């Protein structure tokens, strides 16, 4: 009984390390293929379109609503201490440090990451990747690396857009609806949000999340069992694993960046 349990534990651990190893091999090939992507910007452009532009709408809408909710909740909390003036600070810091990188990465996983996995999984299932290899075309360079690089480029831009739109949303609610003084809103924000410590750190976070999100999406697509069930399972795994990885990494990054 206990031996069975130990065996299954061992099996799981082994397969986990196997997957981890394969994931790193994937990452290695992606990284060494990046120079050849830079030689063909057109491929990159196409992928920035499909992972970036097509994710823009959901980012805009979510950013606006998250900012508005932060405005409302922040106002209610701060008004108890008579500190409504600090609303701008509260909204901007929450967005720039945490919300924008994390929520963008989660939305990205749901919108672009899952689509990437499904696309690559299907390309594998229909032997397109294998066919390319037989045509002496390296799928890493032609298919995977452009998607990887596009995701890494798109993520910080999306996060910046999310934060900017969110600040707007907080402004509409705070200043427009709840009557916080406009001058205080902006000046308090500017006084307390630091470009390097807050904005840049937020951008660095979202770059890290970008790498992790596309890496997982591409790995899962490539590793998918080439059947429709396998692809659908890989897609689910992409969203789940990316979300967990982003949330976990966010804690570590926050501790490193903002901890004292």
């Amino acid at each position, binding site marked *: 009984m206990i031996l069975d349990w130990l065996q299954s534990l061992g099996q799981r651990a082994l397969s986990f390390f196997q997957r981890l190893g394969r994931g790193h091999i994937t990452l290695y090939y992606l990284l060494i293929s990046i120079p050849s992507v830079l030689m063909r910007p057109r491929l990159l452009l196409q992928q920035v379109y499909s992972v970036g532009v097509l994710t823009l709408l959901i980012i805009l809408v979510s950013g606006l609503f998250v900012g508005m909710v932060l405005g409302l909740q922040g106002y209610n909390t701060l008004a108890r201490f008579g500190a409504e003036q600090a609303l701008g600070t509260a909204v901007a810091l929450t967005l720039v440090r945490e919300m924008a990188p994390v929520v963008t990465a989660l939305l990205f996983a749901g919108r672009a990451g899952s689509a990437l996995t499904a696309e690559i999984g*299907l*390309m594998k299932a*229909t*032997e*397109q990747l*294998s*066919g*390319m*290899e*037989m*045509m*002496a*075309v*390296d799928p890493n360079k*032609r298919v995977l690396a452009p998607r990887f690089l596009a995701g890494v480029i798109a993520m910080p831009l999306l996060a910046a857009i999310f934060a900017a739109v969110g600040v707007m949303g907080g402004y509409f609610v705070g200043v427009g609806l709840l009557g916080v003084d406009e001058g205080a809103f902006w000046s308090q924000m500017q006084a307390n949000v630091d470009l390097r410590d807050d904005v840049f750190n937020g951008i660095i976070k979202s770059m890290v999340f970008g790498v992790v999100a596309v890496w997982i999406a591409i790995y899962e697509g490539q590793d998918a069992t080439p059947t429709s069930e396998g692809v659908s399972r890989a897609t689910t795994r992409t969203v789940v694993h990316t979300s967990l990885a982003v949330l976990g990494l966010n804690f570590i990054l926050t501790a490193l960046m903002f901890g004292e």
Partner: protein
Amino acid sequence: MAQDETAPLVRIRGLRFARGERVIFDGVDLDIRRGGITAIMGPSGTGKTTLLKLIGGQLRPQAGSIEVDGLDVHRLSRDKLFELRKRMGLLFQSGALLTDLNVFENVAFPLREHTRLPESMIRDLVLMKLEAVGLRGARALMPSELSGGMARRVALARAIALDPMMVMYDEPFTGQDPISMGVLVKLIRRLNDALSLTSIVVSHDVQETAAIADYIYLLSGGKVVAHGSPEELGRADSAWAQQFMQGLPDGPVPFHYPAADYATDLLAGDEGDKA
């Protein structure tokens, strides 16, 4: 390239390949002659597709060697292997067309990837290849709009886009209606002769394959069971070859999957399955 013209284009010696516990090839020797159509036949699940992937260098054998045009496929560096692959075409069973490109771009794909030809010349080449498979009119269609037979013909046009020395066909006749089957049979023969290719056809469709092949290898149980020209195989005294070539339901390959005795199995009831 300065190889002896009479030497076989592909030479396989002592090939052994296993997937996990399952041994797929166990000491296979094969020669593919230049300029001819060689068929590799055998029942489903004998690893015929695996053999093509081994020749193409996508899989690695556990033992034995595969030489293509004098080069040991599995000893080549990645760059050399890619160079060699430019001279081989592989036609996948599914066609493996790139679904986000239309017919024209699919055929143009290897040209764009491997050459720096001007657009007008690419266009001429693509139209020539499409004309050869009779699909010049379908150039603007997307792969999802093609029938299975058409997709295979487009894939064939793509496989010959770089004028390879050899084309490998993976089950080209499976699941085709009689008309597209006839078209493919004729195409394979015609392209082979017109472009002086060497063709390898992997199939289990006896009639069609025998009609175009110059030489046939029969594989079963991980070994070459018989080989020879279609006529020779028709007269082969191997009982297995006879059963396969004539499509008999019972023979050396039994109709029944190995099982316990029928009567005892029935009498055992549920207990039998649990044991």
